């Protein structure tokens, strides 16, 4: 690894040498740290390349038709398609975001605008601890505690009251899209609320106080000053949450039921991209199946790259424009 990798560094080194203060130690540390940084970045490229490489046979066999094929048959027919999983991923992730989005924004508002100062730290820490609960434990709780409750009480209730909507028809069941949505909601709420909280903290105090001085209520100040100011950042927080929900494998695979089907009943089992990958770990019997699993991973990776780069660029632009007062 060359120690002189950028024009600036080269110029600096040249200048130091001219002044007779060039130190080999500096070059060594610079080179070493640069190598580590490049290795970390190279991992991203290596992941993209290697996963795509593993999926190559499936990409060759099924092409883009993979995305619209509803079958997943590892048996004699060896036909694989992702349509059912794309549908399940979309329904569960968007469902979770629909609940977690407003909830997280409300939590962030509580933590920045409403709660007494002494309560902010502890509640904020507790919400973040929710994020620290491992997904396999959330899933365990999802199967054995939440699932039975949902099947015995929550889903019959939804059916009675909202049964005219196709989403809430069908037989209540422990495993299904609805438990997956609930589990994902629990998992993405902490991340969305902690990003939103940082954004709301960055709203300048004089703007907020100006609004209040004009006679707005606190909610009107939030709607008129905080939300418009943090709008793009909130979008980024939601995208980050969506990315998490789409990529979550374990907890979803535990509660969703692993059913290859497209249907509108939230009570019935389905499957998502990530959860299908996770559930195949012991059963990947043929090379074709393994590469089809990798194809699913390629789809997930593409989505997560687009979502994360988009969200991070928005967050950075926001932070650049409105430096967060610390």
């Amino acid at each position, binding site marked *: 690894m060359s120690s002189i990798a950028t024009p600036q560094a080269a110029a600096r080194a040249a200048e130091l040498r001219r002044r007779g203060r060039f130190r080999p*130690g500096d070059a060594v540390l610079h080179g070493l*740290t640069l190598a580590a*940084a490049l290795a970390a970045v190279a991992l991203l490229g290596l992941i993209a390349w290697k996963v795509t490489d*593993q999926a190559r046979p499936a990409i060759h066999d099924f092409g883009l038709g993979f995305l619209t094929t509803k079958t997943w048959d590892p048996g004699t027919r060896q036909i694989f398609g992702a349509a059912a999983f794309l549908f399940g991923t979309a329904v569960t992730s968007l469902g979770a975001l629909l609940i977690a989005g407003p909830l997280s924004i409300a939590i962030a508002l509580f*933590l920045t605008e409403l709660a007494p100062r002494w309560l902010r730290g502890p509640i904020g820490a507790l919400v973040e601890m929710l994020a620290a609960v491992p997904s396999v434990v959330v899933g365990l*709780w999802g199967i054995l*505690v939440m699932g039975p409750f949902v099947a015995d009480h929550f889903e019959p209730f939804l059916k009675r009251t909202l049964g005219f909507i196709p989403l809430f028809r069908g037989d209540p069941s422990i495993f299904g899209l609805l438990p997956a949505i609930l589990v994902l909601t629990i998992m993405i*709420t902490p991340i969305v609320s902690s990003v939103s909280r940082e954004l709301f903290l960055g709203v300048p105090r004089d703007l907020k106080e100006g609004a209040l001085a004009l006679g707005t209520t606190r909610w009107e100040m939030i709607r008129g000053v905080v939300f418009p100011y943090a709008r793009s950042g909130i979008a980024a927080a939601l995208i980050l949450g969506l990315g998490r929900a789409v990529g979550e494998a374990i907890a979803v695979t535990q509660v969703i039921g692993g059913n290859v089907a497209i249907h509108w009943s939230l009570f019935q089992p389905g499957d998502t991209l*990530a959860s299908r990958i996770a559930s195949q770990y012991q059963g990947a019997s043929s090379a074709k199946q393994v590469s089809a699993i990798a194809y699913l991973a390629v789809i997930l990776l593409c989505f997560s*790259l687009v979502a994360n780069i988009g969200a991070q660029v928005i967050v950075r632009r926001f932070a650049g424009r409105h430096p967060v007062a610390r």
Partner: protein
Amino acid sequence: MTLKTPFRRRLVNLAMQAVAVVAAFAAVAVLAVMVISVAKRGAGAINLDFFTKLPHPFAFTPVPTGLANAFVGTAVIVGVATLMALPIGVLTAIYLNEFAPRRVAFLIALALDVLNGVPAIVVGIFVFALVVVGHGQSGLAGSFALAILMIPLIARATQETLALVPESTREASLALGVSRWRTTLSIVLPQTIGGIVTGTTLAVARVAGETAPLLFTSSLVGDQLHADPRQALASVPLKIFEYSESPDPADHRQAWAAALVLIAFILLASTVARLLAARSRRKLGITR
């Protein structure tokens, strides 16, 4: 003319504030319900045997009932992963903060955040394709997968602490004729030890509970006790995953107990990390 806010506006204001309060307490309540469920169901199965004996060989045969192999396996896998991720993470952070030109630092930090967003299951498939396809499953492959998740966490945490070290400290050292590398290693880095420990602890807490990266890298194991990372190792999260899908209630009890141990470890580690972070921030003179 009265200056009182109209009733409807006050009502909306009150309703919206109530919603925010309820949302925050709902999130805390979910955490409480989950932790209490796990504690209530798991506490009964925790005893010395749970840590020192091996799992029972088949469902519905409750003979020896511990998860010794899973605890040993998780300790080895996470330990090796930390050894892999810590140097790369810290060196990357030093480059970002001490050497990189602004634009390069922006791109590398962006790449780290994007790496942090890659789903864990995809990282598992990556290591499967890179290592497992040729050499079979091993604890090392699992460690490698976890290390990939840890690098961005450690690097970002270290970099944030490095950024807190006052520029005047560096300038004072350089003005005394100390070389840049000595300044970095002997003056700047020691001040960030607190941040590095915090970041590493949080990263360990995060990956100790990860199941997805281990599914394809270190999952096909029997129930024998060993600590050799060249072979596939059992792990606590994977045991919970297996037991959670078992029909045997005795397995569920084991899963709850393992979940309790895992949660206790993770919550304890992240609390300690938080306290350490607060302390090291105070030391650097930042009050917030």
